[in-house]
């Protein structure tokens, strides 16, 4: 049996930086068109649920009932595309006239996070994050009254999600595609769908289609439960003790 080794060169990885943000407004359960979100700066993933309820009988714990897991988080941006306004409950009555309190449109989101390591630096690899069935609401904010500079103020929304079907697995609201493990040609095919190519518009494929696109390789298409993998050194340090599940990923280039 091989001996275990720790801290080998090239194996210490970290995850940082958000780029290539794309917004996909939902239309009848599909995400047929994507819009570049240049101003996306931070996506903080906050899975919730999965809380154990221990059951006791005869003074002995005999069962842990685990609640359903939900995926949500916070989106922060410097700017947003016009198409996000419908997702934020705003509609345009006529050019220049907007009205609020409209139904909030569901949307999908894709963004990349950079994976760096100790030998290659920040551009070692990347992960593409796909989010389905997201519903946004503006984050609560108090009036910060003294010398509050609007120039630095981040636009922020909380989002919750509704999971979509995944063949052979429980429904999920997020997929993560890791460039280190997906075949380069398959990844290029997936990116051509996500970001558009030639005459084909950018669109967000549903999980079944993602599996078809990258399924020929050793794809690592993970539902959000695997986001806390040990190799994701960017995981929230508090997640281990159960106090928080947040995984903030910030675009350093935009800050």
């Amino acid at each position: 049996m091989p001996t275990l080794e720790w801290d080998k060169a090239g194996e210490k990885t970290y995850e940082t930086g958000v780029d290539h943000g794309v917004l996909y407004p939902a239309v009848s359960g599909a995400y047929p068109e994507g819009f570049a979100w240049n101003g996306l700066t931070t996506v903080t993933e906050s899975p919730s649920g999965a809380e154990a309820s221990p059951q006791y009988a005869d003074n002995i714990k005999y069962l842990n009932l685990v609640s359903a897991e939900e995926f949500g988080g916070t989106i922060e941006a410097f700017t947003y595309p016009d198409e996000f306004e419908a997702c934020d409950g705003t509609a345009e009555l006529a050019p220049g006239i907007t009205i609020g309190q409209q139904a909030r449109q569901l949307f999908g989101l894709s963004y990349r996070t950079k994976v760096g390591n100790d030998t290659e630096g920040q551009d070692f690899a990347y992960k593409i994050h796909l989010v389905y069935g997201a519903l946004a609401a503006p984050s609560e904010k108090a009036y910060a009254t003294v010398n509050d500079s609007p120039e630095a103020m981040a636009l922020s929304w909380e989002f919750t999600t509704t999971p979509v079907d995944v063949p052979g697995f429980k429904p999920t609201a997020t997929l993560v595609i890791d460039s280190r493990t997906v075949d380069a040609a398959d990844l290029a095919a997936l990116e051509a769908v996500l970001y558009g190519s030639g005459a084909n518009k950018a669109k967000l494929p549903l999980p079944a289609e993602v599996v078809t696109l990258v399924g020929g390789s050793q794809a690592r298409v993970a539902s959000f439960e695997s986001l806390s993998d040990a190799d994701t050194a960017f995981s929230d340090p508090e997640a281990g003790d159960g106090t928080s599940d947040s995984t903030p990923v910030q675009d350093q280039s935009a800050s």
Partner: protein
Amino acid sequence: MFRYAIGTVEVFDSDTGTFRKASPNAPIEFEHSLASLSLWESKWEIPFLSSPDLTSEQTLDYIKCMVVTKDIAPDLFDQVTEHDVHAISEYIGKKNSATWFNDPPQTSNNRQKITSELVYGWMVQLTIPFDPCENWNFNRLLTLIKVTNKLNTTDDKKRKMSRSELAQRNRELNAQRRAKTGSQG
């Protein structure tokens, strides 16, 4: 502190062909302060800040209360011109501070009249020392009082933006930033 020569008038300078300000008197120092306000209110027994229509006599007397320079000629204020009143009023209206506030729109109809004693009361409450603050520019002192009051307000008592206010703010910031950067979003 406002340094100004009473009796200033505009005279035509034939050498340069332009108007310039001139006064036969040396400049003296003025300050619009809580001390000057208090002095004036103790004499006239009306709130200075809530009395928009002051008589000429009351206005002139407040200018006298503002004087900081000692030992000035008693007849100096006989020479006060309209230009002087305008220049001093302009100084009284100045913010005199680099601090700004992002307050929510006022919804309550506050009918409280602000008098010098009320301001002294705020200073006691917020432990702001009378000396030297009562001799500061009054608008600057009010800013200090407001800042101290805000800093003493706990987060849970701060007013939250409503959804419509948030949406409005987001729309405005987004439009400004996109126009500035030329980005589509």
